[in-house]
């Protein structure tokens, strides 16, 4: 039932993906959250963001995603992004497969990509269930299936393990490993340990 048996669909970006941050600082609501954040990742790399609540892990991910302006520093990347945060961003009325298919259509992915994404997170049996009927853990897996189906090389995951049971955590680990093996990149903010081999660590500290 895991994504291992599925042939990984090729990632969309032609050149190898990479993302680098140099001296990033983030100002929210007049408060400097963090400063001097730098890292460089290339194909197959993973970065784990840690730090206490409120230090700006989610803000850093949104900043990398281009949703927030950087107060200083800059982000350089090549390759498309996929962001999985607390918002599922799936139409609650639609059956899960169709809701995922909407985004896949926008991303230029195919129906096979959606099927593979559903299988990778053990959601195949829920494909025809309306999104609003899903449980917390199933919603989380649906969010992850959305980024899986996007075929974007750079994954930004905000607490992806929240609400997942042990079996689902293993699926997440598998999916991240498969993604990296195919030349993808993973940046994950998480307070729980995830099975990411050879990952870089970045502990965010509050700016004084």
């Amino acid at each position: 039932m895991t994504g291992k048996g599925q042939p990984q669909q090729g990632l969309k970006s032609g050149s190898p993906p990479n993302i680098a941050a140099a001296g990033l600082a983030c100002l929210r609501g007049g408060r400097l959250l963090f400063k001097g954040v730098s890292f460089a990742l290339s194909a197959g790399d993973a970065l784990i963001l840690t730090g206490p609540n409120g230090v700006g892990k989610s803000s850093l991910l949104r900043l990398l995603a281009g949703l927030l302006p950087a107060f200083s520093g800059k982000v350089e990347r090549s390759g498309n992004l996929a962001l999985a945060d607390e918002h599922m961003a799936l139409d609650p009325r639609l059956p899960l497969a169709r809701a995922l298919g909407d985004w896949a259509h926008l991303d230029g992915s195919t129906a096979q990509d959606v099927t593979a994404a559903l299988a990778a997170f053990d959601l195949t049996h829920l494909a025809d269930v309306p999104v609003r009927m899903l449980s917390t853990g199933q919603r989380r897996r649906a969010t992850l299936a959305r980024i899986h189906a996007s075929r974007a090389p750079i994954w930004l995951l905000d607490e992806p393990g929240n609400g997942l049971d042990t079996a689902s955590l293993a699926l997440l680990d598998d999916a991240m490993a498969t993604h990296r093996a195919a030349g993808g990149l993973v940046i994950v903010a998480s307070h729980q340990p995830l099975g990411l081999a050879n990952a870089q660590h970045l502990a965010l500290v509050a700016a004084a």
Partner: protein
Amino acid sequence: MNRFIAIVMRDLRVSFGAGGIALPVVFFLLVATLYPFAVGPDGALLARTGGGVLWVAALLAALLPLDRLIAPDAESGVLDQYGVRGMGEEMIAFAKIVAHWLGFGPPLMLAALPAAALLRLDGSTLAAVELGLLAGTPGLAALGVMVASLTAGVRRSGALGGLLMLPLAVPLIIFGAGSIGDFGGGAVRFLAASSLFLVALAPFAAGAGIRALRE
């Protein structure tokens, strides 16, 4: 362009599913039904004032869908996902205006046919109302999306949206109701010009509103 069409189709489907298309039309017809009860069955009076009443009804009907144009997409993270894909906020806003108009303008123009019969409007007045709605509803749709994106982050945005939108819609109602008296005259051109101005301006204002929602 494909992405633009995808947003339009999605918004149309969502508003259709949520009853967002039927609601303004039913409201519009209800006003047209109630007005004769209020002023009495004087055919001449109804025919003289009915066109203006239809314009007021159209304006008020345009307020009904305000709170579901932007806020649900902001809360569910859909607007963020558009942003992650590098889609410009102005493009998103314009797609939303197009979708909103498609679900609002033509249904209202259809509903104006029975409404005109209820108010005993004659053929030329009905033609003027339809032409006016065709010219004016794009402006109403643009105003609606603009106001909705500026108020999406606010609690009880529905009431505030109405307060913001009605004054801005004054030119539309002046020229819209004015166009009924002189069919094909200057008023309908001013109406079309106001509408065009709003359609040109709104994507930028609404785009800025969508960006501000991400903070």
